[in-house]
């Protein structure tokens, strides 16, 4: 044992094989129990009475309306939040002003406020019993129990995703490239389109994808403001809940499977983009 060749050098950050395998096994067990098993269960339940029955339940008017509504909500709220998120991140990272820390906290607020509370706030603000809401209803533009309310609720809940993704990237990149573009004669608008936006496009895409996944899946806030009127204001998540409460488990799980597939599609898109543009992502970080 005193033989010098027996000595094995180990990197300072390396753990013993036993520790490593235990940790890896724990991670996989956790993933299996918390993530994979429930995901598989959703599909198993959906197909409990066969694929035909699952598809038939999806073809019902209620399910089709819910899918259409959810996709519409995402199509409206995600681009709007992308614009607001870029504007907020730009403002926070490129300018120095009083109350910056407060503004950042404010952006994080939707993460810490319960979605149900957020929904109630919207009902209080825009409900028929409030001054503003009453006036809007009188004008023929109801907010609560209608699409605008659902969009507001979704936007509130998903607001931090884009800005949160962008702020660290933009802080790290600094202002030098923008300043360089200005000295070269470019207008502020041109600098934004030709320098700022290309530099943040990957972070922006991540933010948008996360925002989209959450926008389609949001339940709490939407459940409060939408009133869950079938065929009108019931989104996929609220419809799933209603079907489940009515013991229509195949219909509920089929719709849940659709929502899951939409989420997986989002993840797949993100992974594909990462693979295809790995070199550009790396180039962005290396410089």
């Amino acid at each position, binding site marked *: 044992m005193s033989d010098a060749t027996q000595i094995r050098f180990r990197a300072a950050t390396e753990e013993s094989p036993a520790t490593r395998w235990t940790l890896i096994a724990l991670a996989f067990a956790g993933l299996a129990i918390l993530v994979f098993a429930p995901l598989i269960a959703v599909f198993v339940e959906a197909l409990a009475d066969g694929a035909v029955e699952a598809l038939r339940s999806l073809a019902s008017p209620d399910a089709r309306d819910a899918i259409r509504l959810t996709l519409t909500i995402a199509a409206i709220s995600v681009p709007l939040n992308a614009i607001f998120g870029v504007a907020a991140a730009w403002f926070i990272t490129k300018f120095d002003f009083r109350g910056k820390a407060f503004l950042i906290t404010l952006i994080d607020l939707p993460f810490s406020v319960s979605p149900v509370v957020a929904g109630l706030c919207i009902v209080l603000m825009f409900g028929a019993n409030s001054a503003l809401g009453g006036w809007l209803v009188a004008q023929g533009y109801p907010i609560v129990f209608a699409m605008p309310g659902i969009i507001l609720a979704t936007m509130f809940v998903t607001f931090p995703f884009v800005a949160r993704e962008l702020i660290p990237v933009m802080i790290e990149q600094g202002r*030098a490239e923008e*300043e360089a573009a200005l000295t070269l004669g*470019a207008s502020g608008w041109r600098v934004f389109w030709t320098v700022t936006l290309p530099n943040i496009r990957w972070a922006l895409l991540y933010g948008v994808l996360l925002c989209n996944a959450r926008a389609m899946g949001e339940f709490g806030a939407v459940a409060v403001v939408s009133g869950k009127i079938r065929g009108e204001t019931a989104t996929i998540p609220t419809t799933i809940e209603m079907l489940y409460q009515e013991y229509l488990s195949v219909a509920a799980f089929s719709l849940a499977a659709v929502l899951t597939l939409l989420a997986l599609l989002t993840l797949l898109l993100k992974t594909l983009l990462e693979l295809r543009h790995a070199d550009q992502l790396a180039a962005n970080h*290396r410089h």
Partner: protein
Amino acid sequence: MHIEIDEISKAFGTTAALHPVSLSIPSGALVALLGPSGSGKTTLLRILGGLEFPTSGRVLFDGQDATGLTVQERRAGFVFQSYALFRHMTVFENIAYGLNARPRATRPTKAEIARRVTKLLELIQLPDIGARYPSQLSGGQRQRVALARALAIEPRMLLLDEPFGALDAKVRKELRQGLRDIHDTTGLTTVFVTHDQEEAMELADLVVVMSMGRIEQIGKPADIRARPATAFVKDFITA
């Protein structure tokens, strides 16, 4: 172009970065702003380029008041400390940026832009790197591309912030001569910021020694060496 700095001061909040300073830079001169960090040299350079605005005082270009001119109107070729090349653009696109940013009426044709970029790449002696990205260049190459990009807008002056700061000693020496050559070829009034007294003394016609937001001495390198005006200057140039 003759640059006149007339009693310029700059405060960030309550801290004064520049006490009123005055400086006359003759047309075509190669001037070094020399001083330790926090001496206000970079602030002064950024005020010249229009990236900061002075709290008081005036800047005159060829006798014309330029204090209120925007950064775009200054037409100052600016080389940033870490070069600030556009990382998502090729070297060619980087150099062409300023020409493409011009309003349609004064924008050169595509062919003309290509011709000018090619000429600038020859001037910096890197004719074959147009298609590369900044991340694929060495530090010295990046510095020269930044210089070419600044020259592309046909600037009225050249302003450089620690242009050799990020380079190793050998490349630094080579590029010093490169900057001297480009200055002599273009005849542009050139101001560069440095904390390296050897660099300032070797390269500049006129050295401005700064400390704590004040100008300590203005003079030719030989004069400053021979007759340092203050104890600070004496200390700094022998350090």
